[in-house]
């Protein structure tokens, strides 16, 4: 790829992005704030309540960022992509329907470990992914600190902390959506094991993967 191509490869005003790639899927465990984040991103009015399983169907909205519109889909909460109830079935079906979409995986900052299984399943599917560590305000109130930079470095996909109910971090999140990355799982395994894998030779410029810190 020539330098010129690299410089101008980002989508610009008037440049059409293929249909599926403009879709943003909000994926996460039940009750982590996907619908609240959806409303923040789209100005929509998805029902939000403080108990799991509120969203059982699909809500769609649109978000205009970087001079282009994206379709945002609020996926019902799921613990895994192997469906075991009606809401998970809907979630797994939608994820299967949009293989080219950007996956915005929403984690609950107060119990981050529970969402990592689902996150890994999304990464295994080879979807371009961005991670939102939501409810960072609640975590802070509980004295929980989340090292998003370390998580980003380990996973090689952008990680942003947000608080959907107050709007904190949502601007950063929107700004980083175009940097969504496909995770290199063997490299993730190496980094978790403490090794430093060789960076790929054809690294396409800075994509917010955090490799360079």
């Amino acid at each position: 790829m020539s330098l010129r191509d690299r410089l101008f490869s980002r989508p610009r005003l008037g440049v059409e992005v293929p249909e599926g790639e403009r879709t943003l899927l909000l994926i996460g465990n039940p009750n982590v704030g996907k619908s609240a984040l959806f409303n923040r991103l789209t100005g929509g009015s998805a029902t939000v309540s403080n108990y799991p399983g509120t969203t059982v169907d699909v809500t769609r909205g649109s978000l205009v960022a970087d001079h282009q519109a994206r379709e945002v889909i609020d996926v019902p909460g799921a613990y895994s992509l192997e469906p075991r109830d009606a809401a998970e079935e809907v979630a797994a079906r939608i994820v299967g329907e949009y293989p080219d979409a950007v996956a915005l995986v929403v984690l609950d900052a107060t119990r981050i470990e529970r969402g990592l299984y689902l996150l890994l399943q999304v990464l295994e599917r080879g979807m371009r992914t961005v991670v939102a560590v939501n409810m960072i305000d609640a975590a802070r109130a509980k004295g929980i600190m989340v090292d998003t930079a370390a998580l980003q470095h380990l996973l090689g996909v952008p990680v942003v902390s947000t608080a959907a109910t107050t709007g904190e971090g949502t601007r950063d999140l929107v700004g980083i959506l175009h940097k969504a990355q496909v995770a290199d799982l063997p490299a993730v395994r190496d980094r978790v094991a403490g090794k430093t894998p060789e960076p790929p030779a054809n690294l396409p410029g800075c994509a917010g993967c955090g490799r360079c810190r």
Partner: protein
Amino acid sequence: MQLTECGIGETVRVVAVMGCERFRNRLALRGIAPGQICTVVSAACGPIVLAVDGGTLALGRGMAAHITVERNIDEKSN
């Protein structure tokens, strides 16, 4: 002891979850794994409701019977 034997208000630590890997995985994703401390919110009749990590989780008696817990969590607390 099994989770089904616990009374309301008891705080217990999960020792083991019996069953196939799929079942254990399913409970782990909902916060029930060995080492986890949880409080019984309701166990009078019907499902057992637990408070786990700031959330609540309702388990049927069949599932709860697969979970072994211990009461004296203070003595062995790390």
